[in-house]
């Protein structure tokens, strides 16, 4: 509902450099670009998982405790792979929204909201259950929060 109001507001204001429409385009473009960082991070983690490298004890990443835990797999699928799919979907929706496909904006909000919830849950698991932090997972959570922040900025009335 709020999304529709925001979209309607966008349509009513004439287009100029600081108009909400143009601002929305920039924000959606930024969302698409930032989601690529998340996609790269999640793709790397997926490969580490698939090849078994993430399970090793390493002096570099320190992620083995997290990535070898039971929480790293959901329904037989690596969580990182699901994350990569989510980031790619965010990229696709953000790109389409930046090109004026209105419906994708609402889907994007829903998806990023779900990703924020999952990210917070995963940070909680790292902090209080697994008691180890994986910097790649924290980077992913930071990316998700950055995406949510951008969409909140867009959502707010100018």
């Amino acid at each position, binding site marked *: 509902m709020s999304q529709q109001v925001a979209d309607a507001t966008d349509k009513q204001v004439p287009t100029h450099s600081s108009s909400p429409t143009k601002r929305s385009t920039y924000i959606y473009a930024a969302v698409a670009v930032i989601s*690529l960082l998340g*996609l*790269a991070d999640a*793709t*790397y983690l*997926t*490969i*580490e998982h*698939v*090849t*078994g*490298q993430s*399970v*090793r*004890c*390493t*002096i*570099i990443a*320190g992620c*083995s*405790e997290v990535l*070898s835990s039971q929480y790293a797999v959901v329904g037989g699928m690596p969580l990182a792979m699901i994350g*990569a799919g989510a980031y*790619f979907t965010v*990229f*696709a929706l953000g*790109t*389409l929204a*930046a*090109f004026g*496909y209105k419906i994708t904006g609402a889907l994007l909000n829903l998806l990023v909201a779900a990703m924020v919830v999952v990210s917070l849950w995963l940070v909680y698991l790292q902090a209080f259950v697994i008691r180890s932090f994986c910097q790649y997972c924290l980077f992913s959570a930071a990316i998700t929060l950055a995406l949510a922040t951008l969409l909140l900025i867009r959502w707010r009335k100018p």
Partner: protein
Amino acid sequence: MKRILPFLIILSVLGVALGSAWYLKRSSTANPAPPAADSPRPTTPALIAPGAEPPQTSGPATAPVKIEEFGDFECPPCGQFHPILKKMQEEFDKNLQVTFREFPIVQMHHHALAAASSAEAAGLQGKFWEMHHLLYDNQKAWHEQFDVRPIFEGYAKQIGLDVEQFKRDINSDLVARRITEDGKRARSLGVNGTPTVFMNGREMPFEVIINEAKLRAAIKAEIESAKR
């Protein structure tokens, strides 16, 4: 054109992502090129540190397959690899020589150095492998303990060591130097995690060493290749 441009961008990114994933998977599972016949290592021998001398080995020096493991006694995957390697030693007997190199990841494992020192101290009394097996077999039991010294001293007693000598050796310069020398060798070979396993000088992918059937097949292939 403007209508299809976003779809072109999305498809391009999908292509790049899948291509990168394929490249990453390929490079992380690929074996380095086999060493030349006269070179035991994949890189320039002069740049490779020798490690602690004499090394902790099990099996004949004439074995056609030589496995060198860089391990950390507190690392869970090393604990999983241990029974697999033990089984391979039993199966391939005189065709397999195993060398263990200390690579305690002290940043992550609080007792890894104490465990490595205990194994090396046992080695000074000729019982490295007995201690090695006990440490791995009971990894879960001591891993979460606050003070592991009495546990390791119990293992020393169990395998018939002179416990007082063992306690002195744990803190000796000789034991510390052996662990340092193995660490230097690890760094010179680019080892950054455990278990890292070299078979006849080639680093083995983790997915191979942790899979009994794949490791068996790899060892058999090396034996066949040595016969030719």
